[in-house]
Protein backbone atom coordinates (compact mmCIF):
# COMPACT_ATOMS: atom_id res chain seq x y z
CA UNK A 1 0.00 0.00 0.00
CA UNK A 2 1.67 3.14 -1.17
CA UNK A 3 -0.03 5.24 1.50
CA UNK A 4 2.35 3.68 4.01
CA UNK A 5 5.22 5.56 2.43
CA UNK A 6 3.60 8.87 3.30
CA UNK A 7 4.36 8.11 6.93
CA UNK A 8 8.04 7.81 6.04
CA UNK A 9 7.96 11.05 4.09
CA UNK A 10 6.03 13.05 6.68
CA UNK A 11 8.04 11.45 9.48
CA UNK A 12 11.34 12.48 7.94
CA UNK A 13 10.00 16.03 7.61
CA UNK A 14 8.92 16.04 11.27
CA UNK A 15 12.35 14.94 12.37
CA UNK A 16 14.07 17.54 10.15
CA UNK A 17 11.81 20.34 11.40
CA UNK A 18 12.35 19.35 15.01
CA UNK A 19 16.11 19.51 14.40
CA UNK A 20 15.54 23.02 13.10
CA UNK A 21 13.49 23.91 16.19
CA UNK A 22 16.28 22.53 18.35
CA UNK A 23 18.91 24.71 16.68
CA UNK A 24 16.64 27.75 17.02
CA UNK A 25 16.20 27.01 20.73
CA UNK A 26 19.95 26.64 21.12
CA UNK A 27 20.61 29.89 19.24
CA UNK A 28 18.09 31.91 21.24
CA UNK A 29 19.27 30.42 24.54
CA UNK A 30 22.86 31.37 23.78
CA UNK A 31 22.13 34.79 22.25
CA UNK A 32 23.55 36.65 25.25
CA UNK A 33 26.39 34.38 26.28
CA UNK A 34 29.48 36.56 26.68
CA UNK A 35 33.00 35.55 25.75
CA UNK A 36 36.40 37.16 26.38
CA UNK A 37 37.64 36.40 22.84
CA UNK A 38 36.15 36.80 19.37
CA UNK A 39 37.02 33.17 18.55
CA UNK A 40 35.39 31.66 21.61
CA UNK A 41 32.02 33.29 21.05
CA UNK A 42 28.97 31.10 20.35
CA UNK A 43 28.06 30.96 16.66
CA UNK A 44 24.51 30.45 15.49
CA UNK A 45 23.84 26.97 14.17
CA UNK A 46 21.65 26.27 11.14
CA UNK A 47 20.59 22.88 9.79
CA UNK A 48 21.00 22.13 6.08
CA UNK A 49 18.05 20.27 4.52
CA UNK A 50 18.23 18.05 1.46
CA UNK A 51 15.81 15.77 -0.33
CA UNK A 52 16.25 12.14 0.72
CA UNK A 53 15.66 9.56 -1.99
CA UNK A 54 15.11 6.13 -0.56
CA UNK A 55 16.22 3.06 -2.44
CA UNK A 56 13.07 2.25 -4.33
CA UNK A 57 12.51 1.04 -7.82
CA UNK A 58 11.56 3.22 -10.74
CA UNK A 59 13.06 6.13 -12.58
CA UNK A 60 14.72 8.80 -10.47
CA UNK A 61 12.19 11.47 -11.44
CA UNK A 62 9.31 9.28 -10.23
CA UNK A 63 10.71 8.75 -6.75
CA UNK A 64 9.24 10.74 -3.94
CA UNK A 65 11.77 12.13 -1.51
CA UNK A 66 11.57 12.69 2.20
CA UNK A 67 13.82 15.17 3.97
CA UNK A 68 17.17 14.64 5.61
CA UNK A 69 19.38 16.95 7.61
CA UNK A 70 22.71 16.95 5.79
CA UNK A 71 24.43 18.60 8.68
CA UNK A 72 24.44 21.59 10.97
CA UNK A 73 26.62 24.51 9.96
CA UNK A 74 27.88 27.32 12.15
CA UNK A 75 27.39 30.71 10.57
CA UNK A 76 30.41 33.02 10.34
CA UNK A 77 28.57 36.19 11.23
CA UNK A 78 30.90 38.53 13.16
CA UNK A 79 30.30 38.76 16.92
CA UNK A 80 28.77 41.77 18.60
CA UNK A 81 31.52 43.65 20.45
CA UNK A 82 30.66 45.75 23.49
CA UNK A 83 32.87 47.91 25.65
CA UNK A 84 32.12 46.96 29.28
CA UNK A 85 35.34 47.37 31.28
CA UNK A 86 33.83 46.13 34.58
CA UNK A 87 32.54 42.88 33.05
CA UNK A 88 34.18 39.77 34.57
CA UNK A 89 34.73 38.36 31.06
CA UNK A 90 36.14 41.56 29.53
CA UNK A 91 39.56 41.35 27.80
CA UNK A 92 42.48 43.67 28.70
CA UNK A 93 40.96 46.50 26.62
CA UNK A 94 37.57 46.15 28.30
CA UNK A 95 35.79 44.53 25.37
CA UNK A 96 33.28 41.69 25.71
CA UNK A 97 32.16 39.58 22.75
CA UNK A 98 28.59 38.45 22.25
CA UNK A 99 27.22 36.09 19.56
CA UNK A 100 26.06 37.79 16.35
CA UNK A 101 22.59 36.30 16.66
CA UNK A 102 19.50 38.16 15.56
CA UNK A 103 16.68 37.11 17.88
CA UNK A 104 14.08 38.40 15.42
CA UNK A 105 15.54 36.21 12.68
CA UNK A 106 15.53 33.21 14.97
CA UNK A 107 11.92 33.81 16.01
CA UNK A 108 10.85 33.99 12.35
CA UNK A 109 12.78 30.78 11.75
CA UNK A 110 11.00 29.18 14.68
CA UNK A 111 7.53 30.15 13.41
CA UNK A 112 8.35 28.82 9.95
CA UNK A 113 9.61 25.55 11.41
CA UNK A 114 6.59 25.09 13.65
CA UNK A 115 4.18 25.79 10.77
CA UNK A 116 5.94 23.21 8.62
CA UNK A 117 5.84 20.76 11.51
CA UNK A 118 2.09 21.30 11.90
CA UNK A 119 1.54 20.79 8.17
CA UNK A 120 3.26 17.44 8.26
CA UNK A 121 1.43 16.30 11.38
CA UNK A 122 -1.80 17.16 9.57
CA UNK A 123 -0.71 15.13 6.53
CA UNK A 124 0.11 12.11 8.65
CA UNK A 125 -3.16 12.21 10.58
CA UNK A 126 -5.26 12.65 7.41
CA UNK A 127 -3.51 9.72 5.76
CA UNK A 128 -3.99 7.62 8.86
CA UNK A 129 -7.75 8.24 8.76
CA UNK A 130 -7.89 7.42 5.05
CA UNK A 131 -5.96 4.20 5.57
CA UNK A 132 -8.22 3.10 8.40
CA UNK A 133 -11.24 3.76 6.21
CA UNK A 134 -9.64 1.80 3.37
CA UNK A 135 -9.09 -1.13 5.70
CA UNK A 136 -12.78 -1.09 6.59
CA UNK A 137 -13.79 -1.22 2.94
CA UNK A 138 -16.40 -3.92 2.34
CA UNK A 139 -17.01 -4.60 6.03
CA UNK A 140 -20.40 -4.06 7.52
Amino acid at each position, binding site marked *: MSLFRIFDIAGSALSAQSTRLNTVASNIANADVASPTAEGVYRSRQPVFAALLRGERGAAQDRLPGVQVLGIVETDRPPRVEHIPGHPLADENGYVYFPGISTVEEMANMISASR*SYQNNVEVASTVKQLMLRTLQLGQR
Partner: protein
Amino acid sequence: MSKLIDAALGIHPTALALGARRLEVLAANMANADTPGYKARDVDFRSALREAAGARLERTHERHLPGHASAADTLKYRVPNQPALDGNTVDAELEQTAFAEAAVRYQASLDFLASRIDGLRKALRGE
Protein backbone atom coordinates in the same frame (compact mmCIF):
# COMPACT_ATOMS: atom_id res chain seq x y z
CA MET B 1 -15.65 -14.34 -12.35
CA SER B 2 -12.98 -11.89 -11.31
CA LYS B 3 -13.39 -10.09 -14.62
CA LEU B 4 -17.07 -9.71 -13.82
CA ILE B 5 -16.27 -8.25 -10.41
CA ASP B 6 -13.68 -5.96 -11.99
CA ALA B 7 -16.32 -4.75 -14.41
CA ALA B 8 -18.79 -4.23 -11.59
CA LEU B 9 -16.33 -2.15 -9.60
CA GLY B 10 -15.71 0.07 -12.62
CA ILE B 11 -13.03 2.71 -12.62
CA HIS B 12 -12.98 3.20 -8.87
CA PRO B 13 -10.12 0.83 -7.91
CA THR B 14 -7.90 2.59 -10.45
CA ALA B 15 -9.01 5.99 -9.19
CA LEU B 16 -8.28 4.88 -5.62
CA ALA B 17 -4.74 3.78 -6.50
CA LEU B 18 -4.09 6.99 -8.40
CA GLY B 19 -5.53 9.01 -5.52
CA ALA B 20 -3.11 7.30 -3.12
CA ARG B 21 -0.25 8.12 -5.48
CA ARG B 22 -1.31 11.75 -5.66
CA LEU B 23 -1.54 11.98 -1.86
CA GLU B 24 1.99 10.65 -1.72
CA VAL B 25 3.30 13.21 -4.22
CA LEU B 26 1.65 16.07 -2.33
CA ALA B 27 2.97 14.78 1.00
CA ALA B 28 6.48 14.76 -0.47
CA ASN B 29 5.98 18.35 -1.64
CA MET B 30 4.90 19.46 1.81
CA ALA B 31 7.70 17.55 3.52
CA ASN B 32 10.20 19.39 1.32
CA ALA B 33 8.67 22.83 1.80
CA ASP B 34 11.99 24.05 3.28
CA THR B 35 14.46 22.04 1.19
CA PRO B 36 16.64 24.27 -1.01
CA GLY B 37 16.31 23.53 -4.71
CA TYR B 38 13.31 21.20 -4.36
CA LYS B 39 10.80 21.46 -7.22
CA ALA B 40 7.15 20.78 -6.40
CA ARG B 41 5.41 18.15 -8.52
CA ASP B 42 1.90 16.90 -9.03
CA VAL B 43 -0.01 14.18 -10.84
CA ASP B 44 -2.17 15.28 -13.76
CA PHE B 45 -5.10 13.28 -12.42
CA ARG B 46 -7.37 13.43 -15.45
CA SER B 47 -4.83 12.28 -18.04
CA ALA B 48 -3.23 9.77 -15.64
CA LEU B 49 -6.62 8.19 -14.91
CA ARG B 50 -7.49 8.07 -18.60
CA GLU B 51 -4.22 6.38 -19.43
CA ALA B 52 -4.37 4.00 -16.48
CA ALA B 53 -7.94 2.97 -17.32
CA GLY B 54 -7.47 2.71 -21.08
CA ALA B 55 -3.96 1.40 -21.49
CA ARG B 56 -4.67 -2.14 -20.36
CA LEU B 57 -2.80 -4.66 -22.49
CA GLU B 58 -4.89 -7.60 -23.67
CA ARG B 59 -3.07 -10.92 -23.91
CA THR B 60 -3.81 -13.11 -26.90
CA HIS B 61 -1.75 -16.00 -25.55
CA GLU B 62 -1.48 -17.23 -22.00
CA ARG B 63 2.33 -17.24 -22.12
CA HIS B 64 2.57 -13.59 -23.08
CA LEU B 65 3.94 -11.37 -20.38
CA PRO B 66 1.30 -9.24 -18.71
CA GLY B 67 1.88 -5.60 -19.51
CA HIS B 68 1.88 -2.98 -16.81
CA ALA B 69 0.78 0.48 -17.73
CA SER B 70 3.18 2.71 -15.84
CA ALA B 71 1.55 5.82 -17.22
CA ALA B 72 0.31 6.58 -13.71
CA ASP B 73 3.83 7.64 -12.77
CA THR B 74 4.00 10.63 -15.05
CA LEU B 75 4.73 13.44 -12.66
CA LYS B 76 4.67 17.03 -13.81
CA TYR B 77 6.51 19.94 -12.26
CA ARG B 78 4.42 22.76 -10.92
CA VAL B 79 4.73 26.21 -12.47
CA PRO B 80 5.76 28.33 -9.48
CA ASN B 81 3.89 31.50 -8.61
CA GLN B 82 6.66 32.90 -6.47
CA PRO B 83 9.81 30.76 -6.44
CA ALA B 84 12.06 31.24 -3.44
CA LEU B 85 15.62 32.50 -3.73
CA ASP B 86 16.96 29.07 -2.76
CA GLY B 87 15.29 27.46 -5.80
CA ASN B 88 12.42 25.89 -3.85
CA THR B 89 9.06 26.03 -5.66
CA VAL B 90 6.79 24.60 -2.95
CA ASP B 91 3.86 26.88 -2.13
CA ALA B 92 2.73 25.51 1.25
CA GLU B 93 -0.82 26.92 1.07
CA LEU B 94 -1.35 25.61 -2.45
CA GLU B 95 -0.09 22.18 -1.43
CA GLN B 96 -2.33 22.18 1.64
CA THR B 97 -5.46 22.85 -0.39
CA ALA B 98 -4.42 20.33 -3.04
CA PHE B 99 -3.87 17.75 -0.31
CA ALA B 100 -7.30 18.44 1.21
CA GLU B 101 -8.87 18.09 -2.23
CA ALA B 102 -7.01 14.84 -2.92
CA ALA B 103 -8.07 13.45 0.46
CA VAL B 104 -11.73 14.22 -0.27
CA ARG B 105 -11.45 12.62 -3.71
CA TYR B 106 -9.88 9.55 -2.14
CA GLN B 107 -12.77 9.33 0.33
CA ALA B 108 -15.24 9.71 -2.53
CA SER B 109 -13.57 6.81 -4.37
CA LEU B 110 -13.77 4.77 -1.17
CA ASP B 111 -17.48 5.51 -0.82
CA PHE B 112 -18.17 4.62 -4.45
CA LEU B 113 -16.30 1.37 -4.02
CA ALA B 114 -18.14 0.57 -0.80
CA SER B 115 -21.52 1.09 -2.46
CA ARG B 116 -20.48 -1.06 -5.44
CA ILE B 117 -19.39 -3.83 -3.07
CA ASP B 118 -22.67 -3.44 -1.25
CA GLY B 119 -24.56 -3.84 -4.52
CA LEU B 120 -22.56 -6.91 -5.46
CA ARG B 121 -23.25 -8.48 -2.09
CA LYS B 122 -26.96 -7.80 -2.43
CA ALA B 123 -26.97 -9.34 -5.92
CA LEU B 124 -25.17 -12.44 -4.63
CA ARG B 125 -27.60 -12.91 -1.75
CA GLY B 126 -30.57 -12.39 -4.01
CA GLU B 127 -32.45 -10.35 -1.45
